[in-house]
């Protein structure tokens, strides 16, 4: 009997070991986040430089104040704006970047290497020096104070990061698939839509998650292009609590950051399982 259960028991103890290890690393990694959550329950003057994780006497006043709005604007307004921008960005990136990625990965068109170099080149320049020319451009197009400057680029695949990410994935998919499809008379559009896109699901999901989060956290774009507080997203709402010459409301800001975390966390939780499922269910490998 012992001979029979031995491997099982070893497997079980290894599993325990794994969980212990993972939890240890996790505690380390999550400590700062717990600190933020704990701080949102501290009185404002205890937050900066405060050493304890959770207050002995939690206060909820910061959340209560948020309920009354920030600068006369309901907090929900910021969240709605952020969601519009984030989902709008995800749709754009999925559409435009996957097209470009497919072209780079699977189509032998002339000038491909040149375009690829140009694309990588766009990653290399710090955006601070592009701000003024871009602003002038959108101003001439009379698009200041709209969401267009914040979204247009997403539909035109200007995020080279995602083109590159999807391309790296597509290149690693077996060539036989599209070659077989070609033999069946499929053109590029159908190969792209029916074969490559479904198989690239992990890359698409990964890109969606990043796009969502980056759009959610983006501050510079909204700062420059939006001129009315009720169009502001959450990232800008967060900055309304602290200014050099007013009494700083650290409590309000930390509470708002905790709230701001929830939608991104929800988005990630909702889609992270597809990261795995995507490849596992495709059943193509081997």
């Amino acid at each position, binding site marked *: 009997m012992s001979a029979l259960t031995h491997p099982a028991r070893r497997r079980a103890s290894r599993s325990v070991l794994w969980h212990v290890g993972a939890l240890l690393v996790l505690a380390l990694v999550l400590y700062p986040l717990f600190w933020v959550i704990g701080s949102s329950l501290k009185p404002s003057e205890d937050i900066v430089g405060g050493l304890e994780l959770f207050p002995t006497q939690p206060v909820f006043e910061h959340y209560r104040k948020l309920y009354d709005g920030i600068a006369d604007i309901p907090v929900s307004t910021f969240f709605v704006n952020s969601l519009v921008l984030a989902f709008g960005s995800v749709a754009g990136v999925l559409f435009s970047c996957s097209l470009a990625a497919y072209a780079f990965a699977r189509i032998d068109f002339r000038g491909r290497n040149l375009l690829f170099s140009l694309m990588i080149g766009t990653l290399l320049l710090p955006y601070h020096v592009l701000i003024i020319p871009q*602003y002038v*451009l*959108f101003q001439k197009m009379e*698009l*200041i104070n709209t969401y267009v400057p914040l979204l247009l680029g997403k539909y035109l695949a200007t995020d080279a990061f995602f083109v590159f990410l999807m391309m790296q994935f597509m290149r690693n998919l077996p060539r036989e698939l599209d070659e077989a499809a070609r033999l069946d008379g499929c053109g590029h559009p159908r190969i792209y839509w029916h074969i490559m896109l479904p198989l690239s699901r992990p890359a698409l999901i990964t890109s969606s998650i990043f796009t969502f989060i980056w759009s959610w956290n983006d501050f510079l774009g909204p700062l420059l292009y939006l001129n009315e507080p009720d169009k502001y997203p959450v990232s800008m709402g967060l900055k309304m609590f*602290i200014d050099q010459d007013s*009494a700083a409301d650290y409590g309000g800001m930390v509470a708002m950051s905790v709230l701001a975390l929830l939608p991104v966390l929800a988005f990630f939780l909702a889609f992270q399982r597809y990261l795995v499922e995507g490849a596992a269910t495709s059943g193509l490998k081997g």
Partner: protein
Amino acid sequence: MTSWRNTRGLRAAGVSVVALGLLATGCGGDGGTGAGGKVEIRYSWWGGQERASLINRTIALFEKKYPDIEVKTDFQDYENFWKKFNTQASAGNAPDVFQNSVAFLRKYDDKRVLLDLSAQVEAGNLSMEHFRAGLDKAGEVDGKLVGVPVGGNTFALIYNPAEYKKIGVTPAEGWTWDEYDAATEKISKGGLPGDSGGGGIMYLYDLVLRQNGKAFFTDDAKLGFTEADLEDWWNKNYARTKAGVLTDPKKIEQAKPTSGLSKDLSAGEFTWDNFLVRYTSETKTPLAIAPVPTTDGKRTGQYISSLMLSGSARTKHPKEVATFIDFMVHDPEVGKIMGYDRGVLATEEQFDAYEPTGVSAQIAAYEKQIADNVEPITPHPAGADIVEAAFLRIAADVFLGKTSVDDGTKQFFSEAKTALGS
């Protein structure tokens, strides 16, 4: 390549795109005359959400009185306000009215960004009467009126009275630097450094210079002191830091964004008087306000600095801008709402209308107390903000022991020359 000059090429690109019909629907509503003959003006400022709530209330009052003018607001924190402002202004899209500070008047006047309001004063749309002493001329640059003060502030010592009580010293008008140095030394013997360290604060050093008949900047946009002067000042501060009289600069650095004083790292700090409001909200320790010491027991060197409202030189509605500023600085109701949020109220009407309580009352009392000794302000040449930042940064290098006083002084003079030269 030359076509990119003046971004003309970009303009052409933008226009041609619109022409191509790719993005034919321009849905940006900017400025201009809105529906029903209403004039729309954009108003931006820096500040937190509480300031925004107060300002929103004052704008509601304004729009009620002037139903033909609609005010669109926009606000950010200080750093981002200027970043956005610079972007917009360089593209010719600055807000019609905006918050400004005396430190930036020349910088932006040089670049022709600011509206000269003198014509509006003559036309009777803006009154420059009834400003408190030291503020009436604060917004003038070379005979042009480019800023209108909304609130004033001045330097002070904000301190922890319990610590001073322990050593039996009461900071009061007429006290000298020798007395101050002795007091802080005595306090630091008890374990708490007497001062957060102000050797890198341009405005404090300016006061010390003014007490000695000099000033940080001269009228012709140069530094008003010698390398030897600065070496003395930094040597003194460095020695006091080493002796533990001034807080270890590492700890001050670490405590940001709160001040050393409000983290109980020292018994006092020289700063703007209205910061008492902010400091008090950051600590449980009771704080008080006292005058800056003098060299001879008499001359304070003090002046009133201020936050202002400025108009954009490219506004299409100068008259409405002037009307708006006039209302914001003179209307007593506005004063009652704003209180000392942007410094002690600038005009008599508003100063009298608002009854300060708590720490605001302390600040008001302090400004009244020093009012008789107020002198004209030191000019802030274009580049003053860069010089201020360099002064602060290099002083930190010096006090952290990364640079010698000698080298730091040379470095500062060289950077200041570049900043003021342009």
